[in-house]
Protein backbone atom coordinates (compact mmCIF):
# COMPACT_ATOMS: atom_id res chain seq x y z
CA UNK A 1 0.00 0.00 0.00
CA UNK A 2 1.44 3.35 -1.09
CA UNK A 3 0.54 6.14 1.39
CA UNK A 4 1.31 9.81 1.05
CA UNK A 5 4.28 10.70 3.30
CA UNK A 6 2.20 12.68 5.82
CA UNK A 7 -0.37 9.91 6.16
CA UNK A 8 2.35 7.27 6.49
CA UNK A 9 3.99 9.31 9.24
CA UNK A 10 0.74 9.57 11.18
CA UNK A 11 0.00 5.84 10.79
CA UNK A 12 3.45 5.02 12.09
CA UNK A 13 3.14 7.37 15.07
CA UNK A 14 -0.31 6.07 16.02
CA UNK A 15 0.88 2.49 15.62
CA UNK A 16 3.22 2.99 18.58
CA UNK A 17 0.34 3.59 20.96
CA UNK A 18 -0.41 0.68 23.32
CA UNK A 19 -2.95 -1.75 21.95
CA UNK A 20 -2.98 -0.16 18.50
CA UNK A 21 -2.03 -2.39 15.57
CA UNK A 22 -1.27 -1.27 12.04
CA UNK A 23 -4.85 -1.73 10.88
CA UNK A 24 -6.33 0.35 13.68
CA UNK A 25 -3.63 2.99 13.23
CA UNK A 26 -4.64 3.26 9.58
CA UNK A 27 -8.33 3.64 10.47
CA UNK A 28 -7.56 6.33 13.07
CA UNK A 29 -5.34 8.19 10.64
CA UNK A 30 -8.06 8.19 8.01
CA UNK A 31 -10.55 9.42 10.59
CA UNK A 32 -8.27 12.29 11.54
CA UNK A 33 -7.72 13.13 7.90
CA UNK A 34 -11.47 13.37 7.34
CA UNK A 35 -12.28 15.24 10.57
CA UNK A 36 -13.07 18.94 11.07
CA UNK A 37 -10.03 21.20 11.16
CA UNK A 38 -11.03 22.52 14.62
CA UNK A 39 -11.14 19.00 16.10
CA UNK A 40 -7.76 18.10 14.67
CA UNK A 41 -6.14 21.28 15.95
CA UNK A 42 -7.61 20.66 19.37
CA UNK A 43 -6.35 17.07 19.37
CA UNK A 44 -2.84 18.08 18.35
CA UNK A 45 -2.77 20.86 20.92
CA UNK A 46 -4.04 18.51 23.67
CA UNK A 47 -1.31 15.99 22.92
CA UNK A 48 1.30 18.71 23.01
CA UNK A 49 -0.08 20.28 26.21
CA UNK A 50 -0.16 17.05 28.23
CA UNK A 51 3.55 16.67 27.66
CA UNK A 52 4.48 20.32 28.08
CA UNK A 53 2.39 21.18 31.11
CA UNK A 54 2.36 18.06 33.27
CA UNK A 55 4.81 18.06 36.16
CA UNK A 56 5.01 16.36 39.53
CA UNK A 57 3.08 17.72 42.49
CA UNK A 58 5.53 19.22 44.97
CA UNK A 59 3.64 17.78 47.90
CA UNK A 60 2.50 14.28 46.89
CA UNK A 61 4.58 13.69 43.70
CA UNK A 62 1.49 12.73 41.72
CA UNK A 63 0.81 14.37 38.36
CA UNK A 64 0.16 18.10 38.47
CA UNK A 65 0.04 21.27 36.44
CA UNK A 66 1.85 23.87 38.45
CA UNK A 67 2.98 23.30 42.03
CA UNK A 68 0.14 21.21 43.40
CA UNK A 69 -2.06 18.47 41.99
CA UNK A 70 -5.89 18.68 42.06
CA UNK A 71 -6.11 16.46 45.17
CA UNK A 72 -3.59 18.46 47.17
CA UNK A 73 -5.37 21.69 46.19
CA UNK A 74 -8.83 20.40 47.15
CA UNK A 75 -9.77 21.68 50.65
CA UNK A 76 -12.55 19.10 50.93
CA UNK A 77 -10.12 16.17 51.00
CA UNK A 78 -9.42 14.84 54.47
CA UNK A 79 -6.02 15.75 55.81
CA UNK A 80 -6.07 12.91 58.32
CA UNK A 81 -5.66 10.04 55.89
CA UNK A 82 -2.78 9.44 53.50
CA UNK A 83 -2.67 6.73 50.85
CA UNK A 84 0.83 5.73 49.73
CA UNK A 85 1.19 4.37 46.19
CA UNK A 86 4.07 3.39 43.91
CA UNK A 87 3.33 5.40 40.77
CA UNK A 88 1.07 8.28 39.62
CA UNK A 89 -0.97 5.73 37.64
CA UNK A 90 -1.81 3.95 40.92
CA UNK A 91 -3.05 7.23 42.39
CA UNK A 92 -5.33 7.68 39.40
CA UNK A 93 -6.61 4.12 39.77
CA UNK A 94 -7.56 4.70 43.42
CA UNK A 95 -9.20 7.98 42.43
CA UNK A 96 -11.28 6.19 39.82
CA UNK A 97 -12.67 3.97 42.56
CA UNK A 98 -14.12 7.17 44.14
CA UNK A 99 -14.24 5.64 47.62
CA UNK A 100 -11.20 7.30 49.08
CA UNK A 101 -11.42 10.87 50.28
CA UNK A 102 -8.03 11.43 51.85
CA UNK A 103 -4.73 12.50 50.35
CA UNK A 104 -1.91 10.67 48.58
CA UNK A 105 1.79 10.23 48.49
CA UNK A 106 3.54 8.77 45.43
CA UNK A 107 6.82 6.97 46.18
CA UNK A 108 7.86 6.94 42.51
CA UNK A 109 8.97 3.32 42.73
CA UNK A 110 9.56 0.52 45.24
CA UNK A 111 12.52 -0.79 47.19
CA UNK A 112 14.44 -2.94 44.73
CA UNK A 113 17.92 -3.75 46.05
CA UNK A 114 18.67 -5.74 42.89
CA UNK A 115 18.26 -2.55 40.87
CA UNK A 116 20.09 -0.44 43.43
CA UNK A 117 16.87 1.28 44.52
CA UNK A 118 16.90 1.92 48.25
CA UNK A 119 14.93 4.31 50.50
CA UNK A 120 16.99 7.29 49.32
CA UNK A 121 15.97 6.75 45.71
CA UNK A 122 12.27 6.97 46.63
CA UNK A 123 10.18 9.89 47.90
CA UNK A 124 10.35 8.58 51.45
CA UNK A 125 12.09 11.55 53.10
CA UNK A 126 9.37 13.99 51.92
CA UNK A 127 6.76 11.49 53.14
CA UNK A 128 8.26 11.48 56.63
CA UNK A 129 8.36 15.26 56.56
CA UNK A 130 4.63 15.39 55.78
CA UNK A 131 3.88 12.93 58.57
CA UNK A 132 5.88 14.90 61.12
CA UNK A 133 3.66 17.93 60.52
CA UNK A 134 1.15 16.12 62.69
CA UNK A 135 -2.16 16.30 60.80
CA UNK A 136 -2.11 12.79 59.34
CA UNK A 137 -3.54 10.08 61.60
CA UNK A 138 -3.64 7.12 59.28
CA UNK A 139 -1.42 5.90 56.46
CA UNK A 140 -2.82 3.35 54.00
CA UNK A 141 -0.08 1.54 52.10
CA UNK A 142 -1.26 0.63 48.61
CA UNK A 143 1.92 -0.67 47.01
CA UNK A 144 1.53 -3.67 44.69
CA UNK A 145 1.33 -7.19 46.15
CA UNK A 146 4.71 -8.14 44.64
CA UNK A 147 7.65 -9.09 46.83
CA UNK A 148 9.13 -5.60 46.27
CA UNK A 149 5.81 -3.94 47.10
CA UNK A 150 5.44 -6.03 50.27
CA UNK A 151 8.98 -5.26 51.41
CA UNK A 152 8.40 -1.55 50.78
CA UNK A 153 5.22 -1.72 52.86
CA UNK A 154 7.14 -3.42 55.69
CA UNK A 155 9.82 -0.77 55.55
CA UNK A 156 7.30 2.08 55.66
CA UNK A 157 5.38 0.51 58.54
CA UNK A 158 8.62 0.16 60.45
CA UNK A 159 9.58 3.81 60.15
CA UNK A 160 6.05 5.30 60.40
CA UNK A 161 4.70 3.43 63.43
CA UNK A 162 7.13 5.05 65.89
CA UNK A 163 5.45 8.39 65.02
CA UNK A 164 2.25 7.07 66.61
CA UNK A 165 0.40 7.03 63.28
CA UNK A 166 -1.91 4.16 62.37
CA UNK A 167 -0.57 2.15 59.42
CA UNK A 168 -2.71 -0.19 57.34
CA UNK A 169 -2.13 -2.25 54.22
CA UNK A 170 -4.74 -2.62 51.47
CA UNK A 171 -6.26 -6.10 51.33
CA UNK A 172 -5.41 -8.38 48.45
CA UNK A 173 -7.02 -11.54 47.32
CA UNK A 174 -9.75 -12.76 45.03
CA UNK A 175 -10.98 -10.21 42.49
CA UNK A 176 -14.67 -9.28 42.53
CA UNK A 177 -16.55 -11.53 40.13
CA UNK A 178 -13.71 -14.04 40.39
CA UNK A 179 -14.16 -17.74 40.81
CA UNK A 180 -12.43 -19.48 43.73
CA UNK A 181 -11.99 -22.60 41.66
CA UNK A 182 -9.80 -20.83 39.11
CA UNK A 183 -7.75 -18.59 41.38
CA UNK A 184 -4.01 -19.37 41.50
CA UNK A 185 -2.73 -20.85 44.75
CA UNK A 186 -0.61 -17.85 45.76
CA UNK A 187 -3.55 -15.44 45.55
CA UNK A 188 -5.83 -17.90 47.30
CA UNK A 189 -3.53 -18.47 50.25
CA UNK A 190 -3.11 -14.70 50.66
CA UNK A 191 -6.86 -14.28 50.55
CA UNK A 192 -7.29 -16.87 53.29
CA UNK A 193 -4.55 -15.25 55.32
CA UNK A 194 -6.22 -11.84 54.98
CA UNK A 195 -9.74 -13.11 55.80
CA UNK A 196 -11.92 -11.07 58.13
CA UNK A 197 -14.50 -11.93 60.68
CA UNK A 198 -18.17 -11.50 59.83
Amino acid at each position, binding site marked *: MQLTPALARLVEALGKL*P*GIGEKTAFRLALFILGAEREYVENLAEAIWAVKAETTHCQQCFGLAEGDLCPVCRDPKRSEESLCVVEEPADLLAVERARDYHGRYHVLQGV*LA*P*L*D*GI*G*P*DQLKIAPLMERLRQGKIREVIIATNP*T*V*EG*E*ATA*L*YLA*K*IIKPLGIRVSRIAHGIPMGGDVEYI*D*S*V*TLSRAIEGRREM
Partner: protein
Amino acid sequence: MIEKRTAAVVLRARPYGESDKIVTLLTRDWGKVTGIAKGAKRSQRRFVNVLDSFTHVQLYFRPSRGDDLAFIFRCDLIRNFRAPGQDLRRYAFASYITELIDVMIAGREAGTEAYTLLLAGLTTLEEQSVLSTIFLPAFTLLLLSSTGYQPNVTECQHCGVFIGANKGASVFSPSRGGLLCPRCHDHGGMTIHLSDDTVQALTASRTTPPEDFLRIATSLRTARETRAVVTSLLSRHLTRPLKSQAFLEQLEAFSDSHVDGPQGE
Protein backbone atom coordinates in the same frame (compact mmCIF):
# COMPACT_ATOMS: atom_id res chain seq x y z
CA MET B 1 14.26 -26.12 18.72
CA ILE B 2 11.68 -27.89 20.82
CA GLU B 3 10.27 -26.84 24.13
CA LYS B 4 12.43 -27.59 27.18
CA ARG B 5 11.30 -28.05 30.73
CA THR B 6 13.35 -27.51 33.88
CA ALA B 7 12.95 -26.42 37.47
CA ALA B 8 14.23 -22.87 38.07
CA VAL B 9 14.37 -19.95 40.48
CA VAL B 10 13.39 -16.47 39.27
CA LEU B 11 16.28 -14.08 39.85
CA ARG B 12 14.56 -10.99 38.49
CA ALA B 13 11.91 -9.82 36.04
CA ARG B 14 11.70 -6.46 34.31
CA PRO B 15 8.84 -4.94 32.34
CA TYR B 16 9.60 -4.84 28.64
CA GLY B 17 7.52 -2.66 26.37
CA GLU B 18 3.79 -2.42 26.88
CA SER B 19 2.96 -5.99 27.78
CA ASP B 20 6.02 -8.24 28.09
CA LYS B 21 8.57 -9.05 30.74
CA ILE B 22 12.20 -10.04 30.50
CA VAL B 23 12.95 -12.66 33.10
CA THR B 24 16.25 -14.06 34.35
CA LEU B 25 16.18 -17.45 36.05
CA LEU B 26 18.71 -19.88 37.42
CA THR B 27 17.67 -23.28 36.13
CA ARG B 28 18.51 -26.73 37.34
CA ASP B 29 19.53 -28.07 33.94
CA TRP B 30 20.33 -25.08 31.72
CA GLY B 31 22.35 -22.69 33.87
CA LYS B 32 21.23 -19.09 33.86
CA VAL B 33 18.49 -18.32 31.34
CA THR B 34 17.22 -14.90 30.31
CA GLY B 35 14.05 -14.96 28.28
CA ILE B 36 11.02 -13.02 27.21
CA ALA B 37 7.61 -13.76 28.71
CA LYS B 38 5.12 -12.46 26.15
CA GLY B 39 2.05 -10.83 27.60
CA ALA B 40 3.28 -11.29 31.17
CA LYS B 41 2.56 -7.68 32.05
CA ARG B 42 -0.92 -7.42 30.61
CA SER B 43 -2.71 -10.72 30.42
CA GLN B 44 -1.45 -12.62 33.40
CA ARG B 45 -3.03 -15.96 32.69
CA ARG B 46 0.12 -17.96 31.99
CA PHE B 47 2.32 -16.01 34.38
CA VAL B 48 0.21 -15.06 37.36
CA ASN B 49 2.30 -14.82 40.55
CA VAL B 50 5.19 -16.85 39.16
CA LEU B 51 7.59 -14.16 37.93
CA ASP B 52 8.30 -12.47 41.26
CA SER B 53 11.93 -12.62 42.35
CA PHE B 54 12.82 -15.69 44.44
CA THR B 55 9.92 -17.80 43.14
CA HIS B 56 10.62 -21.51 42.53
CA VAL B 57 8.96 -22.56 39.27
CA GLN B 58 8.78 -25.20 36.60
CA LEU B 59 9.93 -23.37 33.47
CA TYR B 60 8.80 -24.25 29.92
CA PHE B 61 10.98 -22.48 27.40
CA ARG B 62 12.80 -22.50 24.08
CA PRO B 63 16.53 -21.90 24.57
CA SER B 64 18.09 -19.02 22.67
CA ARG B 65 20.72 -19.29 20.00
CA GLY B 66 23.73 -17.16 20.83
CA ASP B 67 22.92 -13.94 22.62
CA ASP B 68 19.22 -13.84 21.82
CA LEU B 69 16.58 -14.09 24.47
CA ALA B 70 15.04 -17.44 25.23
CA PHE B 71 11.29 -17.70 24.69
CA ILE B 72 9.31 -18.48 27.83
CA PHE B 73 6.10 -20.36 27.14
CA ARG B 74 4.88 -20.88 30.65
CA CYS B 75 5.88 -21.07 34.31
CA ASP B 76 4.18 -23.28 36.86
CA LEU B 77 4.53 -22.55 40.53
CA ILE B 78 6.56 -24.99 42.61
CA ARG B 79 7.02 -22.85 45.69
CA ASN B 80 6.35 -19.25 46.57
CA PHE B 81 8.80 -18.16 49.28
CA ARG B 82 6.94 -15.86 51.64
CA ALA B 83 9.67 -14.79 54.05
CA PRO B 84 11.16 -12.03 51.85
CA GLY B 85 7.76 -10.32 51.70
CA GLN B 86 7.21 -10.64 55.43
CA ASP B 87 10.57 -9.75 56.92
CA LEU B 88 12.76 -6.91 55.68
CA ARG B 89 16.02 -8.48 56.78
CA ARG B 90 15.18 -11.68 54.92
CA TYR B 91 14.21 -9.60 51.90
CA ALA B 92 17.64 -7.97 52.01
CA PHE B 93 19.33 -11.36 52.40
CA ALA B 94 17.32 -12.93 49.57
CA SER B 95 18.18 -9.97 47.34
CA TYR B 96 21.84 -10.28 48.23
CA ILE B 97 22.19 -13.99 47.51
CA THR B 98 20.16 -13.63 44.31
CA GLU B 99 22.34 -10.79 43.05
CA LEU B 100 25.47 -12.68 44.05
CA ILE B 101 24.31 -15.67 42.00
CA ASP B 102 23.45 -13.38 39.11
CA VAL B 103 26.89 -11.76 38.96
CA MET B 104 28.92 -14.89 39.68
CA ILE B 105 27.12 -17.18 37.22
CA ALA B 106 27.64 -16.24 33.61
CA GLY B 107 25.35 -18.42 31.54
CA ARG B 108 24.75 -21.92 30.45
CA GLU B 109 27.90 -23.44 31.92
CA ALA B 110 26.63 -23.30 35.49
CA GLY B 111 26.05 -26.72 36.96
CA THR B 112 23.27 -27.72 39.27
CA GLU B 113 25.42 -26.83 42.28
CA ALA B 114 24.60 -23.12 42.23
CA TYR B 115 20.93 -23.92 41.69
CA THR B 116 20.88 -26.29 44.65
CA LEU B 117 22.69 -23.71 46.74
CA LEU B 118 20.27 -20.88 45.88
CA LEU B 119 17.33 -23.09 46.71
CA ALA B 120 18.96 -24.09 49.99
CA GLY B 121 19.51 -20.40 50.77
CA LEU B 122 15.89 -19.42 50.07
CA THR B 123 14.59 -22.45 51.96
CA THR B 124 16.71 -21.55 54.97
CA LEU B 125 15.41 -17.96 54.89
CA GLU B 126 11.89 -19.38 54.74
CA GLU B 127 12.12 -22.04 57.39
CA GLN B 128 14.70 -21.10 59.99
CA SER B 129 13.15 -19.01 62.74
CA VAL B 130 16.47 -17.58 63.91
CA LEU B 131 19.04 -17.18 61.17
CA SER B 132 22.58 -18.27 61.85
CA THR B 133 25.01 -15.34 62.09
CA ILE B 134 27.09 -17.11 59.48
CA PHE B 135 24.24 -17.35 56.93
CA LEU B 136 25.48 -14.80 54.40
CA PRO B 137 29.23 -15.53 54.73
CA ALA B 138 28.44 -19.25 54.52
CA PHE B 139 26.35 -18.79 51.39
CA THR B 140 29.08 -16.70 49.80
CA LEU B 141 31.74 -19.27 50.70
CA LEU B 142 29.72 -22.10 49.17
CA LEU B 143 29.11 -20.11 46.02
CA LEU B 144 32.79 -19.22 45.71
CA SER B 145 33.60 -22.90 46.08
CA SER B 146 31.07 -24.01 43.48
CA THR B 147 32.47 -21.50 41.00
CA GLY B 148 36.07 -22.63 41.53
CA TYR B 149 37.30 -19.98 43.97
CA GLN B 150 37.28 -22.14 47.05
CA PRO B 151 39.86 -21.09 49.67
CA ASN B 152 42.55 -23.71 50.24
CA VAL B 153 42.70 -24.58 53.94
CA THR B 154 44.64 -27.86 53.83
CA GLU B 155 48.13 -26.84 52.80
CA CYS B 156 50.37 -23.81 53.09
CA GLN B 157 50.01 -21.69 49.98
CA HIS B 158 53.72 -20.84 50.06
CA CYS B 159 55.68 -24.00 51.00
CA GLY B 160 52.99 -26.62 50.55
CA VAL B 161 53.23 -28.17 54.01
CA PHE B 162 50.08 -29.86 55.33
CA ILE B 163 48.30 -27.51 57.71
CA GLY B 164 45.56 -29.61 59.26
CA ALA B 165 47.43 -30.35 62.49
CA ASN B 166 48.79 -26.84 63.00
CA LYS B 167 46.70 -25.37 65.78
CA GLY B 168 46.37 -21.72 66.59
CA ALA B 169 48.69 -20.24 64.03
CA SER B 170 46.74 -20.03 60.82
CA VAL B 171 46.68 -16.93 58.71
CA PHE B 172 44.69 -16.51 55.55
CA SER B 173 46.18 -14.78 52.55
CA PRO B 174 43.55 -13.34 50.18
CA SER B 175 46.10 -12.79 47.43
CA ARG B 176 47.14 -16.46 47.60
CA GLY B 177 43.60 -17.68 48.15
CA GLY B 178 44.41 -19.88 51.15
CA LEU B 179 46.22 -20.49 54.42
CA LEU B 180 49.89 -19.96 55.24
CA CYS B 181 51.84 -22.03 57.77
CA PRO B 182 53.58 -20.26 60.71
CA ARG B 183 56.92 -20.25 58.88
CA CYS B 184 55.45 -18.55 55.82
CA HIS B 185 53.25 -15.88 57.47
CA ASP B 186 55.22 -13.12 55.78
CA HIS B 187 54.72 -14.41 52.26
CA GLY B 188 51.09 -13.54 51.68
CA GLY B 189 50.82 -9.75 51.71
CA MET B 190 47.89 -8.61 53.85
CA THR B 191 46.67 -11.54 55.91
CA ILE B 192 43.71 -12.37 58.15
CA HIS B 193 44.22 -14.30 61.38
CA LEU B 194 41.84 -17.21 61.78
CA SER B 195 40.84 -19.09 64.90
CA ASP B 196 40.86 -22.90 64.88
CA ASP B 197 37.06 -22.88 64.88
CA THR B 198 37.02 -20.82 61.73
CA VAL B 199 39.49 -23.10 59.96
CA GLN B 200 37.27 -25.98 61.02
CA ALA B 201 34.20 -24.23 59.62
CA LEU B 202 35.97 -23.53 56.33
CA THR B 203 36.98 -27.17 56.14
CA ALA B 204 33.48 -28.36 57.02
CA SER B 205 32.02 -26.32 54.16
CA ARG B 206 33.48 -28.86 51.73
CA THR B 207 31.74 -31.88 53.13
CA THR B 208 28.56 -30.50 54.72
CA PRO B 209 25.40 -30.35 52.59
CA PRO B 210 24.58 -26.68 51.82
CA GLU B 211 21.27 -26.59 53.71
CA ASP B 212 23.08 -27.79 56.85
CA PHE B 213 26.10 -25.56 56.45
CA LEU B 214 23.88 -22.47 56.09
CA ARG B 215 22.36 -23.28 59.48
CA ILE B 216 25.42 -24.18 61.53
CA ALA B 217 25.77 -22.43 64.85
CA THR B 218 29.08 -20.62 65.16
CA SER B 219 30.59 -18.05 67.46
CA LEU B 220 30.33 -14.43 66.41
CA ARG B 221 34.09 -14.52 65.97
CA THR B 222 33.95 -17.34 63.43
CA ALA B 223 31.13 -15.58 61.59
CA ARG B 224 33.24 -12.40 61.42
CA GLU B 225 36.40 -14.19 60.34
CA THR B 226 34.54 -16.15 57.69
CA ARG B 227 33.01 -12.91 56.49
CA ALA B 228 36.47 -11.34 56.25
CA VAL B 229 37.73 -14.31 54.21
CA VAL B 230 34.83 -14.36 51.74
CA THR B 231 34.81 -10.57 51.43
CA SER B 232 38.47 -10.55 50.50
CA LEU B 233 38.01 -13.36 47.99
CA LEU B 234 34.88 -11.82 46.54
CA SER B 235 36.51 -8.45 46.02
CA ARG B 236 38.98 -10.17 43.72
CA HIS B 237 36.20 -11.47 41.50
CA LEU B 238 33.66 -8.65 41.51
CA THR B 239 34.24 -5.54 39.45
CA ARG B 240 31.79 -3.47 41.50
CA PRO B 241 30.11 -3.80 44.88
CA LEU B 242 26.75 -5.53 44.82
CA LYS B 243 23.77 -3.19 44.55
CA SER B 244 21.94 -4.96 47.32
CA GLN B 245 24.90 -4.38 49.66
CA ALA B 246 23.84 -0.75 50.12
CA PHE B 247 20.36 -1.85 51.16
CA LEU B 248 21.75 -4.35 53.65
CA GLU B 249 23.82 -1.62 55.22
CA GLN B 250 20.94 0.83 55.35
CA LEU B 251 18.82 -1.75 57.07
CA GLU B 252 21.57 -2.37 59.56
CA ALA B 253 21.60 1.34 60.37
CA PHE B 254 18.14 1.30 61.95
CA SER B 255 17.81 -2.34 62.84
CA ASP B 256 18.43 -3.62 66.35
CA SER B 257 19.48 -7.03 65.09
CA HIS B 258 22.90 -6.94 63.50
CA VAL B 259 23.21 -7.89 59.85
CA ASP B 260 26.22 -9.95 58.98
CA GLY B 261 26.71 -9.19 55.33
CA PRO B 262 29.95 -9.98 53.59
CA GLN B 263 31.73 -6.70 52.95
CA GLY B 264 29.81 -5.10 55.80
CA GLU B 265 31.48 -3.05 58.55
